[in-house]
């Protein structure tokens, strides 16, 4: 999953869970049924899981652009210089 996808996934997950929680409380209170509230919320959790946890293709639409190998060769890595030892006189 690319960076853009990760950001979308985090927001989607939170929004889906919060909305299903709010709907669950409202519907449950209106119908005076605790069970209804729990079922709606459980449904919301399952939906959020299916949407955000697997690595769906639409989360990979903005892949990172890695540097081309031919370009990398033109800019060699800096060499590690041997450390100078400072000795006390």
């Amino acid at each position: 999953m690319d960076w853009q996808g990760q950001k979308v996934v985090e927001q989607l997950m939170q929004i889906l869970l919060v909305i299903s929680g709010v709907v669950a409380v409202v519907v449950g209170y209106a119908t005076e049924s605790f069970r209804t509230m729990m079922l709606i919320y459980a449904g919301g959790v399952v939906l959020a899981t299916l949407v955000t946890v697997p690595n769906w293709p639409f989360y990979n639409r903005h892949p990172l652009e890695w540097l081309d190998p031919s370009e990398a060769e033109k800019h060699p890595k800096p060499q590690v210089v041997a450390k100078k030892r400072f000795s006390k006189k």
Partner: protein
Amino acid sequence: MHSFGYRANALFTFSVTALAFICAIASLSDNFSDQNPSAEIQILNINRFKKQSYENDEVSLTLDITADLQSLFTWNTKQVFAFVAAEYETPKNSLNQVSLWDAIIPDKEHAKFRIQTSNKYRFIDQGHNLRGKEFNLTLHWHVMPKTGKMFADKIVMPGYSLPDAYK
């Protein structure tokens, strides 16, 4: 959010936290409900009143209990535990409470009832103080929620008394 496990963990944590919020809201909604329970108890008969073989006083009663606890039930109520206690004062104890009868009320339909029964639990005094004793019969109830805090209340019915002599 870079891996399956990471996302699964994040979702699990967030959903459990949200669940805790939902349950708290459900519990708080109980404070908005209007509650007016009522009850009445009559003593039909005092069956036996004796000293237990030179020990403590014991009474056996038949009670007629009428109660309407339907308004205690909300969407967040699991069950109501109700019990009747006899309360009186003795020289030794400022308050004696003896539980005579109890019941678990599972739902609203069973919460309005009238029952005639002898006391489920023995009414035994610590001593010989019950002759001519005046006592209160109190109906206590504990409302047990599905989530949240249990709360308890009672109705005190004064003015009952026992005979002056053993039967």
